[in-house]
């Protein structure tokens, strides 16, 4: 078997916007109708991106605000992020800004591989967020890719993940190895131990 790159994707966004449905459509080609709030689920999928095969580890998270204390750990481990909102609720879009800020802070970076996803595009009649709202946000964040998706109709689902993969691959090459947790082991930051001087040692 070829040595394949492995990437960690984290899916973030408010509760009920369809993070789990998107994931399930992408990973298993299945539509889930019922209500089943997530605490933390992890999936793996091998995909082909522009002729290169890579392994995706996808972490589907809790949108419920009570679980925010877990986010930091996810963000540390993730290399690419899907920030999902629902086109039927404006507040789910505004929640994304805080998430992005937190990611950048934890990553100590000005940009990270990221895609804005406006889900439930099939519910046009309940639309509460116009496309240009999200486009404006994308501009503001430095032209972050933005898609509207429907997990129900499986529209744009693969596209979203592919786009993110390409970004992660580019970052991988450009960043000369940094952030390429290829073996899957989360790369804990190593502290340059404060300078120590030792003298004689007999206890």
């Amino acid at each position, binding site marked *: *078997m070829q*040595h*394949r790159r*492995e990437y960690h994707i984290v899916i973030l966004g*408010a*509760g*009920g*916007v369809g993070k*789990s449905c998107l994931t*399930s459509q992408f990973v298993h080609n299945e539509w*889930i*109708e*019922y*209500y*089943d*709030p*997530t*605490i*933390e*689920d*992890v*999936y*793996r999928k*091998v995909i082909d991106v522009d002729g290169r095969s890579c*392994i995706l580890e996808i972490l*589907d998270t809790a*949108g*419920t*605000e*009570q*679980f925010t*204390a*877990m986010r930091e750990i996810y963000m*540390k481990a993730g290399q690419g992020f899907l920030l999902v909102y629902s086109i039927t*609720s404006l*507040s*789910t879009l*505004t*929640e994304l800004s805080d998430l992005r*800020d*937190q990611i950048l*802070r934890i990553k*100590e970076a000005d940009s990270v591989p990221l895609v804005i996803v406006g889900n439930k595009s099939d519910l046009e009649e309940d639309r509460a967020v116009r496309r240009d709202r999200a486009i404006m946000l994308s501009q503001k964040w430095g032209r972050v890719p933005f898609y509207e998706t429907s997990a129900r109709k499986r529209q744009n689902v693969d596209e979203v993940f592919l786009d993110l993969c390409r970004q992660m691959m580019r970052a991988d090459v450009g960043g000369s190895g940094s952030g390429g947790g290829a073996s*899957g*082991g989360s790369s804990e*930051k190593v*502290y340059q*131990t*404060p*300078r*120590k*001087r*030792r*003298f*004689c*040692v007999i*206890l």
Partner: protein
Amino acid sequence: MSVTTMLAPSARNSTSSTSSSFVPVTRQNTIGSDGAPRSVRASKRYSVTALYLSMSAQDKDMEIEDELARVQKTLRDLKSRISSQSKKNFVLEKDVRYLDSRIALLIQNRMALEEQNEVASHFDESSELQEGTFPDDRKTQQYGNLFFLLQSEPRHIAALCRLVNMAEIDSLLQTVMFTIYGNQYESREEHLLLTMFQSVLSAQFDTTPEYSSLLRANTPVSRMMTTYTRRGPGQSYLKVVLAKQINNLIELKDLNLEINPLKVYERMVKNVEEDTGTLPANMPRSVSAEEAAENPQVQAIIEPRLTMLMELANTFLSTIIDNINETPYGIRWICKQIRSLTRRKYPDAKDNIICTLIGGFFFLRFLNPAIVTPRSYMLIDNIPSEHPRRTLTLIAKMLQNLANKPSYSKEPYMAKLSPFVTANKNRISKFLNDLCEVGDFYESLEMDNYVALSKKDLELNITLNEVYATHNLLEKHAKELLQGRDTEHLTILLQELGPAPPQVPRKENRAIILPLFSRWESALDDLSAALDITQEDVYFMEAKSIFVQLLRTLPPISAAVRRPLNLKKIADVAATTKDIGTFRKGIRGLELLNQLKDLGVISEVDEYQILREEVEQELVHLGSLKEKVTEESLKLDEVYKTIRDHNAYLVSQLETYKSYLHNVRSQSEGKQRGKQQKQHVLGPYKFTHQQLEKEGVIQKSNVPDNRRANIFFTITSPTPGTFVISLHYKGRNRGLLELDLKLDDLLEMQQNNHDELDLEYVQFNVPKVLALLNKRFARKKW
């Protein structure tokens, strides 16, 4: 102390007539978990007793000082301390959260000077507020009217909660839950708060098209629920049902219960590689989920873990179910509302849908977050290490699964845990339904409101900025707000107040005591009409309450208190005492006996049997009440301690940030002036091994026991923000080891939950080191 405060422990000013530990009046009668409803009449009579007991609270000239009174006072004090402490913590937490994010930027040198100043200004508020008064009497009165209205008619706040945006909700909730309804153990405020919840919840049900999306999003309602669960009663419940088990679990740092085949396989590969240096040909580095799941070695590892996980989850579940009676009333009542709103709105909703929705609140928003991140809920001291953390997540997932009973597992490996769901299906449904079996409080609330109206001393501890912020929100949303029904009073009050003042600078903010009273006096005279009770009932209850009070005041050796009771004699004895309060009660007792006799309710022939029996029953009840009160005090003592500890932690965190920021600023000031500031060296300070071990600074020591007494440490700070720690052995003039430390590094380690600072011979605990440095080297400048 007044009579009522003894009979009805309440948090503040004896405002309340009821409390969770006080049975004879309303709460446990109308809200019995046994579900047995009393007749409306009976409960009204109880309510009126409450009213009498409460009204005589103003009768300050009579004091009861028995054992019961004393334990009740302890309990009351404790409750009021918990209430005010949890408000302080709420505010501190907000500050620490804000600073957490800012400090990270500062460490990365990404913060401009102006922003540094902005951050620095934040510290001013976290220091204790000065007390003050309103600049102007008329305003005091007008705001007193406004807040009385807001407090006693929760629908206005409820409407406001639905109108504000997520940015506004936090400060509104702070004012609502910790100030307006801040007495967490006082039934009237608690009930009003719950009424507000109900109105917000039902609006949410009205505007949500399908139940699948109900209560899922992060909305003001969900924020309300979180904030509510973080008040004292919710915290103590979590401690009771979770703390012990979670602590046991996190001690088993090496217990790996991962059951995801991919992860198990990965670790297996890693172990083989580390042990042998190579990988056998039949062990590829990466495999698909299916391949991993079919691997016999992986299966062998997972098998016993499944059993253990199910056992663990079972223990959690059993503790939760067994402690159903510990669940705070308000939380159960919210579950009940969810159930009844669902039934009303979606008549064909199946029972399992209802359970899912209740579980969506009780497990998803209350219990499971605490299981998954126990430190944020003050259940444990340190962040758990990797394995226990994963185990806790798995347990939470199992519980959530059980409450939801999805027909299939999104993650295939979770299907292996389905025996847990099958075995506990019925248990959980019953539990979630039982949770809803609590009574309502509307009647007692109505009563409490009458009582409140009769008080002269209702007041609110509030800050100027809270007053102005609330006024501001009301003004901003006035148009929608005043469209509702019955808002004339609010309209008038807002008009009189005029435009809302802006927030005052932090330094000028004051803690004030706002006297509350109603602009619209509602008469108490027609009380018996309003409550539909007769004059006989009123006399009877007053008599009962008077005799109970007398029996508690008269010396226990007095012949009058001997059983069987002789009511006439009791009143006679009282009417001849010198104590004016007792004397009056005696006279009134005699009057009432006569009146009741004339009305034919009691008769002298059987020595007032009906009344006598009720009084005796009441006394028996008061006897057992003392035990209950003592027990409750013990429990709350624990809670108070936890909250205090948490407060100490928050304060030390703020202190650390403060001194760090101070350093950064004084350094950059130095640079700006282009000259090296003269810094004087602080220290060295000396610490013994034993001392640091006791304080938890040393979390692990490799020094042999018999040598520890000879080890000591010195810490010096050559310049602000830098430290040198050296380790010495007695009798040698040179240190064994020296360590240069920068405050930045320590803070960064802390930010990343990296708790260990390695000094070869000993391991220091980073947060504790920070606290120590802070205490010893605080360079005063603020």
